[in-house]
């Protein structure tokens, strides 16, 4: 396991009496691609700004490489930020933009020149030295913002919704670009986004946040397949979240029907939430499923059909490559491994999620 | 400490800008007729103001010219902004260039040029020449406050209204006008204020026999300002402050409402 580079200890922050971050604890490893994911107002950007030094937490500490940097101003920190909407210096050429940090550090002219060349090559914009930021497209400006940050050889690059202003195709291209960059540079990326697909594609670790609390930390697979609560399940991809009862270990009663599952330790007859991904719902012939229902809607989505099936008073969202016309009576089956059991929200952290819903 | 310096600096500027205003208000209560010495507190200038036909006539002229000129300027300026929306870049730049001339040019030159125009046209100097001149320098203020609103406007809303069967006039007043209204109002108020405060252009275009408050004050400078003038200015100033406070209170309330809706 790589060593911890940054530790956030008991960070709290409020604006005008409104708590934005509440006792947040998080560590970030060296060379990790970590994404802070959540809806707007969840505290992800504030966390990033605290890391960058643009905000000071009301309480708590930021430890960077063993030393406390909580109150260190941004210009003294070994991290650089790629800002939302780029924040390029419009009165300077591209070269001057990239050279900004290096000139402040009084690097030699030849060193700066080499660095500009290297950085522009890295972001595939060779020959743009003398252009002005205004003459570049959004995607190009974004690359310049990245180049401007990385020439300073930061140990950590902070990215604040860097792809938010780009169109879909460009966004997808840039995602691969960012992964490549991170691997080439071998530094830590801390990425803020509200786009779950972006987070799943790029991250080593995802931190799902809501209302100032961390909801879950884990790898993309873990977050997607084993959401710890209804908020995470609902925020990451489509899902069927159903209030159910855990009859005993490995058996759950969903909408009056009993399903085998693999989870244990919830106790007997305990109320739980169950998450089933739409692609994990299997539609079978009438009277052969665990639950019986009727197809109520169908939409062709390209890769699959998206259907809604009314069964035992719940509208199930189903993704399937097989087509069942509206009105077809079908049975529903779910593989035990695909049933994810979650505790009903009891702690404050999880309550936050239900409030927002 | 830093905050203290900031506040202190703003405080000094504030004193600098408002010291003369406080002086004038104090003078309006000064029972001595010369402004050089304080003769005790009195309301008598306020009483005699009501009897002073000449000052009241000048006040009336000032207000009616300010009102008419800003109203006409608002109509012409707003129409010009609407027209400019559908103009080519070059034409628009030309229009805006012309608009900027009275803004950037010296008032004295504008005043003289208008005076020469009226002389060569043989227009009799008086109320109408002042009004025409005020409209001229007011239009740019209207255009410059309506134009930014106009640019923010989504052009498709107008087209959408037409698509839904509205006539051009109906679509304009139902869809476009409400959106640019704040700009139009700002423009009107700016124009009104500018007209009220103008001296130089009025000075060159007024001719004998008619006075606004500004020109009246200017002719009184040599022999000494009548204290009634201070009383009148104080009344106007206090009235405007009260008006602003009322607007502010209502404005804040509606702003809070907006905030709540946003959440």
């Amino acid at each position, binding site marked *: 396991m790589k060593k911890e580079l940054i530790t956030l200890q008991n960070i709290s922050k409020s604006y005008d009496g409104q708590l934005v971050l509440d006792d947040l604890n998080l560590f970030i490893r060296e060379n990790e691609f970590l994404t802070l994911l959540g809806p707007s107002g969840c505290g992800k950007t504030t966390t990033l700004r605290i890391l960058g030094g643009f905000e000071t937490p009301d309480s708590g500490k930021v430890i960077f490489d063993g030393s406390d940097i909580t109150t260190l101003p941004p210009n003294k920190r070994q991290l650089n930020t790629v800002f939302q909407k780029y924040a390029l210096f419009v009165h300077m050429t591209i070269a001057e933009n990239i050279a900004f940090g290096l000139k402040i550090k009084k690097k030699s002219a030849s060193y700066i020149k080499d660095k500009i060349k290297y950085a522009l090559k890295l972001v595939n914009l060779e020959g743009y030295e003398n252009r002005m930021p205004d003459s570049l497209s959004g995607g190009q400006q974004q690359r310049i913002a990245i180049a401007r940050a990385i020439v*300073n050889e930061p140990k950590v690059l902070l990215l604040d919704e860097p792809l938010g202003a780009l169109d879909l195709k460009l966004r997808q291209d840039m995602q691969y670009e960012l992964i490549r960059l991170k691997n080439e540079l071998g530094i830590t990326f801390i990425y803020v986004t509200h786009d779950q697909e972006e987070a799943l594609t790029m991250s080593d670790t995802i931190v799902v946040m809501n209302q100032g609390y961390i909801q879950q930390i884990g790898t993309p697979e873990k977050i997607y397949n084993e959401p710890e609560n209804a908020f995470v399940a609902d925020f990451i991809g489509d899902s069927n979240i159903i209030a159910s009862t855990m009859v005993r270990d490995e058996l759950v009663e969903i909408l009056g029907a009993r399903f085998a599952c693999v989870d244990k330790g919830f106790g007997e007859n305990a109320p739980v939430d169950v998450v089933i991904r739409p692609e994990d719902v299997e539609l079978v012939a009438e009277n052969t499923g665990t639950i019986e229902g009727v197809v109520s809607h169908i939409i062709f989505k390209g890769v699959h059909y998206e259907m809604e099936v009314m069964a035992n008073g719940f509208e199930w969202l189903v993704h399937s490559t097989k087509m069942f016309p509206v009105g077809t009576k079908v049975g529903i089956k779910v593989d035990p491994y695909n049933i994810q059991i979650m505790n009903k929200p009891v702690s404050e952290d999880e309550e936050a999620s239900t409030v927002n819903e | 400490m830093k905050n203290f310096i900031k506040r202190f600096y703003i405080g000094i500027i504030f004193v600098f800008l408002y010291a003369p205003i406080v002086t004038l208000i104090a003078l309006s209560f000064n029972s001595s007729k010369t402004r050089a010495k304080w003769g005790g507190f009195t309301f008598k200038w306020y009483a005699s103001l009501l009897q002073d036909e000449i000052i009241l006539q000048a006040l009336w002229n000032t207000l009616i010219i300010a009102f008419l000129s800003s109203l006409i300027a608002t109509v012409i300026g707003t129409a010009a902004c609407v027209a400019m929306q559908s103009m080519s870049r070059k034409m628009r730049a030309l229009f805006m260039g012309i608009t900027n001339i009275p803004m950037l040019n010296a008032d004295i030159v504008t005043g003289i040029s208008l005076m020469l125009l009226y002389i060569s046209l043989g227009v009799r100097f008086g109320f109408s020449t002042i009004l025409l001149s005020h409209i001229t320098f007011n239009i740019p203020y209207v255009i410059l406050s309506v134009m930014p609103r106009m640019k923010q406007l989504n052009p498709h809303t107008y087209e959408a209204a037409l698509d839904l069967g509205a006539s051009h006039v109906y679509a304009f007043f139902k869809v476009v006008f409400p959106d640019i209204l704040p700009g139009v109002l700002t423009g009107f108020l700016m124009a009104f204020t500018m007209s009220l405060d103008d001296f130089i252009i009025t000075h060159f275009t007024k001719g004998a026999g008619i006075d606004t408050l500004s020109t009246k004050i200017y002719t009184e400078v040599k022999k000494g300002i009548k204290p009634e003038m201070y009383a009148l200015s104080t009344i106007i100033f206090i009235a405007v402050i009260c008006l602003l406070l009322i607007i502010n209170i209502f404005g804040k309330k509606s702003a809070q409402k907006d905030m709540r809706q946003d959440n």
Partner: protein
Amino acid sequence: MNRKKALQAPYLFWSVMFILIPLCMIFYYGFTDKTGAFTLENIMAIATAEHAKALWLSMLLSLVSTVLCLVIAYPLAMILSSMNVSQNSFIVVIFILPMWMNFLLRTLAWQTLLEKTGVINNILSFLHLPALNIINTPPAIILGMVYNFLPFMVLPIYNALVKIDKNVINAAKDLGANQVQTFIRIILPLSIPGVISGITMVFVPALTTFVISTLLGGSKILLIGNVIEQEFTRAGNWYLGSGLSIVLMIFIIVNMVLSSVFDKDGEGAIL
């Protein structure tokens, strides 16, 4: 098409009739004599000792007040843009509200404040400080100019400063710049359009004023504005007055060109 014409016609007519033609008239009168014959005499009249002196003094006083305005206004604009005051209430208090007190009266009030036995000198003598005797001198005129035109400098600079994206400043700090470096390399260059527009907004009225010099300079100090005003209202020599105005306009035009070069889309404009 007709609708568009109907909308633009009034303004087009107005601007030709009341802006362009009058300007042409100044040029016509400036380049002719009483018989209507072409002459450069009215323009050359600026070279006479009396006129040249007035122009020189006008330039000197307006330059000094422009610089003073800039020096006072920039920190003020910085402070205001860093505070969370709503833009509207600030503009109203600094800029609009005083205008409702007639500007001649406000300027005259400085007489009362500056007089030998006036308010300021009373305060100064109370504090055992030397008296300030500037009334009816050029410094009093400068004070009047700064007083009247300061808002025209504050507003454009303020507008330019608040337009700077907070993240751009953050980016500079993020890249290692300290406060001073951030100011010199980022904030100052980005506020230049506002500064230029402020300079034009102050310099032109200061250069051409005749009111402030009349009110605060006594009757002895003549600025170029006073000379022109007297040619029109007292001497009745429109030809000479126009000629001198043309000379004045050269400065104004230089100013306009400067401001349009630095401020292409009117970003720093007063509104």
